[in-house]
């Protein structure tokens, strides 16, 4: 799997650059990387309560974006859809007080997914109706969603005391169950199941195949496959938005129990990197999601234990994204490093 080799090379290069940068800036790189490692994987508690907890939204968003990107729909608005889901989840979570837990959780999560889908429905409609490029419209709606969260936590959803810009905690019944002895919530299981389902959809179903076909050859999909590529693209957008919304709902229902500003440390954007690093493969998203979750988790430990600013970890993320883009984006083009490296080894074309 050359995809896998590229991913590993990207991560190694990113960590290497981080080490060089830290040394150059006068930090003890060894200690910093050690803290990074122990913060992410050092103990069972670190692994489950920080790394995996942070990987859940990344995996979910990455899976959703894999759907959209595979269909050729460039949804850059997962951050906004995540917040739309979080707002809806909080609203529902404050109102399902008399319900049994399964009902409350189901209501909260489905409401969050619907809100995420509704948030991306605007760009989807603009694209179908007026041909507005979804890259721009989804991106811009992120800012609207962030502003909406701040409006909510200072207005309709503000806590009873009306002091802090945050909501009241959601009712106990609407909270996701935790793995005993840790802060890892049941959403992780859903992320695993989601990856499995998506793998089956991509590789085993006619719909999944059509979605892939639209992404790699929209014209042929329409003319030879008689596939409505616009419709498939819109459905992919809606699905990716629903999943990002679901991720927002799970963050409220499994981690924060309340809505506040900066609930997401950029999950919607890191999710793009996760999807790309994974080569849009569901299994890869799982691994890449845990990796980026580990980086986020380790960054905190690095700051605490080695005095290195947590933002230094973004160097690793940035390098990984760039290398992943180089390796995967022009999937069939001549520009990908794989294609360039392989050019000499290409088998001769079969003769007529």
């Amino acid at each position: 799997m050359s995809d896998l080799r590229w991913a590993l090379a990207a991560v190694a290069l990113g960590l290497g650059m981080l080490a060089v940068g830290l040394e150059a800036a006068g930090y003890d790189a060894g200690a910093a990387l050690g803290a990074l490692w122990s913060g992410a994987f050092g103990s069972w508690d670190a692994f489950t309560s920080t790394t995996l907890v942070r990987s859940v939204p990344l995996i979910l968003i990455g899976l959703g974006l894999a759907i959209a990107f595979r269909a050729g729909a460039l949804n850059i608005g997962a951050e906004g859809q995540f917040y739309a889901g979080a707002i809806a989840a909080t609203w529902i979570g404050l109102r399902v007080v008399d319900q049994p837990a399964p009902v409350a959780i189901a209501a909260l999560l489905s409401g969050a997914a619907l809100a995420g889908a509704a948030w991306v429905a605007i760009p989807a409609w603009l694209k179908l109706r007026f041909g507005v490029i979804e890259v721009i419209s989804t991106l811009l709606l992120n800012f609207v969603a962030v502003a909406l969260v701040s409006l909510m936590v200072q207005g309709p959803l503000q806590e009873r005391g009306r002091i802090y810009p945050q909501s009241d905690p959601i009712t106990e019944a609407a909270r996701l169950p935790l793995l005993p002895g840790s802060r890892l919530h049941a959403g992780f299981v859903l992320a695993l199941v989601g990856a499995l389902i998506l793998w089956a959809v991509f590789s085993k179903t006619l719909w999944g195949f059509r979605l892939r076909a639209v992404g790699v050859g929209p014209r042929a999909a329409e003319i030879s496959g008689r596939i409505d590529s616009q419709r498939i693209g819109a459905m992919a957008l809606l699905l990716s938005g629903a999943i990002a919304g679901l991720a927002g709902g799970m963050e409220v229902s499994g981690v924060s129990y309340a809505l506040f500003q900066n609930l997401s440390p950029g999950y919607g954007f890191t999710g793009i990197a996760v999807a790309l690093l994974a080569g849009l493969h569901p299994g890869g998203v799982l691994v890449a999601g845990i990796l980026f979750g580990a980086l986020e988790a380790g960054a905190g430990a690095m700051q605490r234990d080695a005095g290195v600013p947590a933002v230094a970890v973004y160097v690793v993320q940035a390098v990984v994204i760039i290398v992943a883009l180089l390796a995967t984006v022009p999937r069939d083009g001549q520009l990908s490093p794989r294609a360039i490296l392989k050019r000499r080894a290409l088998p001769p074309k079969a003769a007529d």
Partner: protein
Amino acid sequence: MLELAGIHKRFGSVQALCGADFTLAQGEVHALLGENGAGKSTLMHVAYGLVRPDRGEVRLDGTARRISSPREARHLGIGMVHQHFTSVPALTVAENVALFAGWPVAPAQLRQRTRELSERLGLPLDPDQRAGRLSVALKQRLEIVKALAGDARVLLLDEPTAVLAPAEAEELLRMIRSFTTTGGSAVLITHKLDEALRAADRVTVLRHGAVTHTGSALGETATSLAEAMVGTEPGVPLVAQTRSRWPAPPLTRESIRLDALEVPRESGYGIALRHGALVVRAGEIVGVAAVEGNGQRELLRAVAGRIVPLRGKLQVVQPVGFIPEDRATEGLIPSLSLTENVVLGLGGDGPWVRRGRIVWREARSRTAELIREFDIAAPGPAVSAASLSGGNQQKLIIARELSRVPAVIVAENPTRGLDVAATAAIHGRLRSAAAAGAAVLFHSTDLDEVLLLADRVIVVSRGIISEAPLGASRTDIGAMMLSTEKDR
């Protein structure tokens, strides 16, 4: 002044030019005629340094030259106006001219220089207007100004009137004439016979990459030129001789019937086909002869269900097999495997689809069968379509479309770019499908192929379908294809 001698050029499996000779004399307008794919543009691209010939010589004023880039051609005084506009819409007229001519950018000077140039050429243009806002005729004018900006003595125009209204075309031809009376020489690529006769001093006709006629335009008529364009070689059976191959019409059922059909242009703007009426019966092969852009594409795509007609009656017996013109972007997806491409075309109709699930094992074994049956040179069903040669890609598409046992087959240029063996194989497949009861409707830009394969020929010209009469000769059909509104 410009001489092209014995030019050969091969693109992959297509011999675009084989020993074409062309001479442009000082002060003349020289029309270069030929069907689509005859090699007209390629020949002029050789002169303009866009295409490097495999063999042959380019001479300018008697000196052999190797023109390896358009920049060099412009330096030698050769300008070209392409079929498609090459201006940057967001830039002004003056900026476009400067960009093309390599002038230094100093806005005030630029404007003045452009104004002077365009007025000197008798082609006034507003230097400050954005190129994207110009009318089609003015865009064309800008192209000419750009081509002449470097004091060109030779102007090559590739179908310049194709996009113009008649009055605009007349003005353009007048402008070309005034350019040549002041010492320039012009080549006018066209497939409009009347235009060539009216505007040109001399005419050269290309056919299959070789010159079939060259001489003064004075003694020529539309008929003699049409004959040179479409040829009269013996050996290719004419329509009349092949007519008896199929059973008398009333005996077989109608597979395609259209009545008063109106089809929009594929681009969505305007009407491509008007009052279309046609009946094709089971077992019949009907060839569509037409010059590109006359509505034949829309006719075929409407029958294949790929374009929704505006009004009228269209009855087509299902299933329909469709072989689109562009293999690599419409017929298949090169990055996918052969199996995936078969699944792509057959979609939910494939027996390997069960309640939305694809049983890939079955799809693979069916694809392997098709590879054997249709003699496709491929190591197996798992290789990507991109790894096949053009001929084998086409065979894969035909295998896929025939595997649905279609009642109707619609094919656009089914053998474009293929070698003789692959062409023969595909003709054989289409014939045997017709013999088994399919109605075949196909178009080829190569009139020879239409005559060779069809039981019956229809001509589409300016959106009107007409039936070639029984026993029509190649020349008759050529004249029908090229007929203008006036002639009718």
